[in-house]
C-alpha cells in the first residue's frame, strides 16, 4: 500500500558502523585484544536494531480510503478528512504529509499565496504508534471540475540513519471533490411557450389526455360532441361533459456544442466552454424547480459506441444532481465530436415533438437539419450571449442560423 523510499544518504550511517565493526574485529584478531571484540559486539547490536527498525518502520501504516464524494458549488467550504492508522510499534514523529489537491479546490488555511495553489500541500504530522491520527484539511471550491487527491506522501526522519524516509501511497485515493458549475442566469427561459402535446400534467393546455378523465361538468355549447358523458347526463338529467387531464410536453432537450469555432485547429479549446456549462447549469436548475423533465446532449468526446455525452431524460432532484455532476466532469481540454453528426443522431431519436435549446454555436450549414426538425413540430431555441458579458438570453432559432451566434 505504501512504497518506502529512502534518502540517498540513508545507507551511509549503516556502512560507517558496519565498517567500524569489521575493523574492530580484524584488529581484535591481529592484536589479540578482547576490547576490540567487545566494541565490535556493541556495533553489531546497533546494526541489528538498525535493520529491525529499517524493515518494520512504516509497514503497518493504513490510510482509510473508502469511495467518497464531496459535492460543492463554487465558493462553498468543506473539510477533507484523512484518517491514518499506525499499527507498528514505532512512532513516526516529526514528519510531514504531502499531497496534491486538484485545481478545482484549494486549502484556504494552508495556502496563503495565489502562486502556491498548484504546489503540493505540506502538513506537519506525527503518527503515534497503535493510534489513529486524523487530519482535517479545510477546502473551498474554486472552480468547476472534479478534484482528486493525488501524490500522497508521508516523509519522516529515520531515527537511526539521520536521514529521511518517504512513504508514497500507491493506491489511488478514492475521495473526489466535485465542484458543480456556477449557474449563470439566462433570461427569457420562462417565456418559452410549450405547444406540444405530451405527458406533463398542467392546469391550462390545449391538449388533453383522453385516457385520464378527471370528472364531469355541465355541458357548454363550445364543447365537442364526443365529450358528452351520456351516463352522467342521464343520471343528472342534464348534459354533462367529461373533463380530461390537461397535458402538455414541457420537457426540454439541451444540446450543447463545445466545439471551438476554429474547427481545424485541434489544439485550441473553446474559451466559452465554462460559460456554456454555466448556462446549461442554470437551465437544469430552472427545469428542476419547475418539475420539468430534461435531457442533455453534448458533443464532448467519450469512449463507447455513442461518442458524445448524453444524459437521458429524467426529472427530480436526483436527475438534477446527475446533470450537475455530468457538467462538472467535463474536462476543460475536452475533445469534441462533429456537431452535425451528433445532431443527425439526435434527429434519429426524435420521434415526438420536443423543445430544444441550443447552447453554443449553431453553424450555418446545419440549417437543413434544423428545418427537418421543425417539420416534426420541434421548437428550437438558442442561447445568445450578450457582448462581453456573461449574461445571456434565449430566443427562437432563426431559419438561417448564424454562424458563431454566441
Amino acid at each position, binding site marked *: 500500500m505504501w512504497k518506502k523510499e529512502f534518502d540517498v544518504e540513508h545507507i551511509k550511517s549503516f556502512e*560507517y558502523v558496519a565498517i*567500524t565493526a569489521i*575493523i574492530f574485529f580484524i584488529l581484535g584478531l591481529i592484536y589479540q*585484544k578482547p576490547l576490540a571484540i567487545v*566494541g565490535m559486539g*556493541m556495533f553489531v547490536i546497533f546494526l541489528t536494531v538498525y535493520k529491525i527498525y529499517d524493515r518494520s518502520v512504516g509497514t503497518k501504516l493504513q490510510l482509510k480510503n473508502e469511495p467518497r464524494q464531496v459535492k460543492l458549488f463554487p465558493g462553498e467550504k468543506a473539510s477533507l478528512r484523512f484518517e491514518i492508522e499506525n499499527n507498528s510499534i514505532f512512532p513516526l514523529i516529526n514528519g510531514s504529509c504531502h499531497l496534491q489537491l486538484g485545481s478545482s479546490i484549494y486549502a484556504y488555511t494552508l495556502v496563503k499565496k495565489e502562486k502556491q495553489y498548484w504546489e503540493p500541500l505540506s502538513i506537519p504530522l506525527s503518527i503515534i504508534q497503535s493510534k489513529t491520527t486524523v487530519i482535517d484539511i479545510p477546502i473551498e471550491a474554486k472552480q468547476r471540475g472534479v478534484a482528486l487527491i493525488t501524490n500522497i506522501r508521508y516523509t519522516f526522519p529515520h531515527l537511526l540513519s*539521520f536521514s529521511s524516509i518517504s512513504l508514497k501511497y500507491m493506491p489511488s485515493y478514492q475521495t473526489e471533490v466535485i465542484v458543480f458549475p456556477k449557474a449563470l442566469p439566462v433570461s427569457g427561459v420562462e417565456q418559452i411557450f410549450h405547444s406540444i402535446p405530451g405527458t406533463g400534467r398542467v392546469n391550462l393546455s390545449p391538449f388533453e389526455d383522453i385516457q385520464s378523465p378527471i370528472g364531469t361538468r355541465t355541458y357548454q355549447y363550445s364543447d365537442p360532441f364526443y365529450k358528452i358523458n351520456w351516463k352522467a347526463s342521464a343520471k343528472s338529467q342534464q348534459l354533462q361533459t367529461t373533463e380530461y387531464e390537461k397535458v402538455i410536453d414541457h420537457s426540454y432537450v439541451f444540446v450543447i456544442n463545445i466545439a471551438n469555432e476554429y474547427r481545424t485547429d485541434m489544439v485550441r479549446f473553446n474559451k466559452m466552454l465554462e460559460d456554456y456549462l454555466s448556462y446549461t447549469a442554470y437551465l437544469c436548475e430552472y427545469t428542476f424547480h419547475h418539475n420539468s423533465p430534461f435531457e442533455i446532449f453534448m458533443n464532448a468526446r467519450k469512449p463507447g459506441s455513442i461518442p458524445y455525452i448524453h444524459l437521458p431524460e429524467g426529472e427530480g432532484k436526483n436527475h438534477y444532481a446527475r446533470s450537475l455532476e455530468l457538467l462538472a466532469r467535463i474536462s476543460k481540454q475536452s475533445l469534441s465530436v462533429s456537431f452535425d453528426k451528433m445532431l443527425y443522431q439526435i434527429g434519429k431519436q426524435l420521434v415526438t415533438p420536443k423543445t430544444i435549446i441550443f447552447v453554443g454555436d449553431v453553424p450555418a450549414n446545419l440549417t437543413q437539419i434544423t428545418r427537418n426538425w421543425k417539420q416534426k413540430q420541434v421548437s428550437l431555441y438558442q442561447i445568445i450571449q450578450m457582448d462581453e458579458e456573461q449574461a445571456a438570453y434565449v430566443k427562437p432559432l432563426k431559419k438561417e442560423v448564424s454562424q458563431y451566434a454566441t
Partner: protein
Amino acid sequence: MLRNQMIVTHAYHFLCEILLVFLLMLPIFHHKYLMVPYWSYLLLAVGTCAVFTLMHTKKMSNMLYFGALPVLFITLYLLNYPVVFTIILPIIFVWRFVFIKKYQDIRKEKQYLLITCLLGAINIILINDPRYLIYVLALLLILFFGFMVSHYVSVHKNQRQM
C-alpha cells in the same frame, strides 16, 4: 525548526563535538601525560553543556559565553589538567557552542558518526584501556538519543499523551 527542537539539537551537537575532542586528545593524555581524565572530562562536558544550554534558552548574548572562560580555566586547573589543555579546552568549548548555536538547522550527525568510528578504530590500536569504549558508546547514544529527542520535542504535547 521549532525552538525546543533547535535547543536540543544544539545541545547534543555540542556534547558530541566535545566528546570527539576528547577522543582526539586521548592518545596524548595516555602516552604523554600517563593519565586520562575519563570521568572528570565527562562530568565537565555534561555540566558545560547543561549551563550553556540553559543560557541558550534564556537567549543570552555571545559575550556571556566568553564570560564562562575564566570559570572553565579555573575548573580545569583545579582538576589538575595539563596547562596546555587548561587553556585550549575552555576556548574550544565556548567557540564550538557559539559556532553551533548560529545555525537554525544543523545536521552533522553523519559526520560525527564517521569521526567516532574512525577515532574508535585508531584508539583501539593506540590505547589498551576498556574505559575509552565508554566514550565511543556515549557518543553513539548521545547522537541517536539526541536525534530522537530533538524530533520528539517537536511533536505537539497533545499527541505525545495519546
